[in-house]
């Protein structure tokens, strides 16, 4: 199995777009090596702007560039893009609905060793609550690249969420990336598993394992968390016994609550959420932390069984 950085998918997407979109600019806030935008800088130095350790200024500058007709991709870590520069994201970008793309890396528990201060586990919740925002959470390198390309072609503010680690390539999710559309990977009818981002890998493992026990699984990958694919969620709610959501994010305000909100209003069923259980993370290797905080296939299976027993 091949492993690659989703953040590399981001910059490779930008490089692929650069010639076709001369108005595309890339900004970074002194983490260009970490976000990988350093590759864009090397190829297009005049279209790259390192803002230094100034996330707030960077997002408002990006808004200014969008007002002048550019397509700025502002790149930094998820915690800085949403918490440190939350006002700028809200009032400079989301409120006027400007064509700014925020490329947020180092999101989720797999950020690892830097610890809780740098693990964005609430960024989706913050951005989801802002009107006008689109949120893309790709599942691997290839989808990260496709999401970046789709974001550039889409007019409006987009939050792109990437991790720090290398994640397995998942051929099942390659191709056909459309903003707002889920990818239904398995069409079973007993239980639904809805994942976003890199949790698609654990979702697949869980689904395969359940299938080997004779359980028919509906596996849905949701690379667009907002606007969410409501129809696919409702079908899952109506056609299976319940839904397990899995996201590398807090269970508060993310995919799980988005799904629960939809089904609660129109097709009530049980929804169990895999994610950070309202706690901060800690330092450790990505895999160790996924084990410790319950982000594994076995955790998904446990929830699925709980629903089916009900």
């Amino acid at each position, binding site marked *: 199995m091949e492993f690659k950085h989703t953040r590399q998918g981001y910059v490779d997407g930008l490089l692929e777009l650069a010639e076709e979109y001369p108005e595309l600019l890339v900004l970074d806030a002194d983490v260009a090596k970490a976000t990988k935008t350093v590759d864009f800088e090397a190829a297009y130095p005049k279209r790259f702007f390192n803002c230094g350790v100034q996330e707030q200024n960077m997002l408002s500058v990006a808004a*200014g560039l969008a007002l002048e007709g550019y397509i700025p991709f502002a790149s930094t870590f998820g915690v800085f893009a949403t918490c440190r520069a939350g006002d700028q994201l809200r*009032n*400079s970008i989301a409120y006027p609905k400007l064509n700014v793309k925020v490329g947020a890396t180092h999101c989720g528990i797999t950020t690892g060793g830097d610890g809780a201060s740098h693990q964005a586990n609430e960024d989706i919740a913050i951005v989801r609550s802002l009107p006008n925002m689109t949120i893309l959470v790709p599942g691997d390198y290839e989808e990260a690249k496709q999401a970046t390309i789709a974001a550039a072609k889409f007019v409006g503010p987009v939050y792109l969420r990437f991790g720090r680690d290398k994640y397995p390539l998942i051929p099942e999710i390659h191709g056909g990336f459309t903003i707002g559309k889920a990818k239904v990977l398995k069409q079973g009818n007993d239980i639904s598993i809805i994942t976003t981002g890199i949790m698609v890998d654990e979702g697949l493992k869980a689904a395969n394992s359940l299938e080997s026990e004779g359980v028919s699984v509906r596996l849905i990958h949701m690379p667009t968390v907002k606007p969410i694919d409501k129809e696919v969620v409702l079908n899952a709610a109506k056609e299976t016994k319940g839904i397990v959501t899995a996201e590398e994010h807090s269970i508060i305000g993310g995919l799980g609550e988005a799904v629960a909100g939809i089904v609660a209003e129109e097709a009530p069923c049980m929804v169990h959420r895999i994610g950070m259980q309202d706690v901060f993370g800690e330092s450790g290797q990505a895999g160790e932390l996924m084990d410790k905080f319950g982000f594994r296939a076995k955790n998904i299976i446990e929830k699925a069984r709980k629903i089916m027993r009900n």
Partner: protein
Amino acid sequence: MLKLGSMEKEKTDLLKEKANGIRKDIVTMVHRANSGHVGGSLGATDLIVALYYQIMKHRPSQPDWNERDRFILSKGHCTPVIYAVLADCGYFPKSELETFRRPGSHLQGHPYQPKTPGIEACTGTLGLGISTGVGMALGAKLRGDNHYYYILCGDGEIQEGQAWEAAMFANKYKLDNVIGFVDRNYLQTDGNSEDIMPLDPLASKWESFGWKTYTMDGHNFEQIVDTVELAQKDTQPVMIIANTTKGKGVSFMENEVNWHGTPPTKDDFENAIKELENGI
């Protein structure tokens, strides 16, 4: 040294007359809405009038004309003055000023760029406007455009760290198309700026961040016009410290911090209008 008195008397009289009319609109709007920021708006009136009626290239009939100079109201709470000026210039009908801060109006409490013709950026949470302005100015430089970005900051506003981030950024990218102003009235919501969070020596702060500075009387039209003319020739970003009086033009509002965000009562309103009518 500023060369003073270069403008003809007729011209300054005309600007004074304009400013007086705008001040009446400001007091009227805030009184009618029973909400809004009258003191800072009155204090910034002369500067904004000088920009829109004498200094800036702009086309009210074509708000998105690319060659226009841009004005960004970074002290976004002072919408009454910019709305009054934009309406008077013809960006939208003057009757719409009556809808200020009312549901359904495009005249929001703080500037909302997508809806209001002539408004260049969403500002109002402080520090955003100057950053957005330098971002726009960078965009113009990349294209080789020659217009200017006039950015008006409040003095209290630049206590925000973001303002100084923008200051560093403008210096790095040599944004000589940025001409900023600090509306230096020494008053902010809770009192005197030097008690709340001292800003002086203000000019040397900006100079140490790589900006050229000028200090002028923000109510003297000749000085405003001459200073901006000098600033346009500079090859670095410029910050002009405009010494102003908060509440300027209405005696009982001048230098009174309580007029920062308090709307005038009926009596205050009538007295203010009477004073402004006699004031010219």
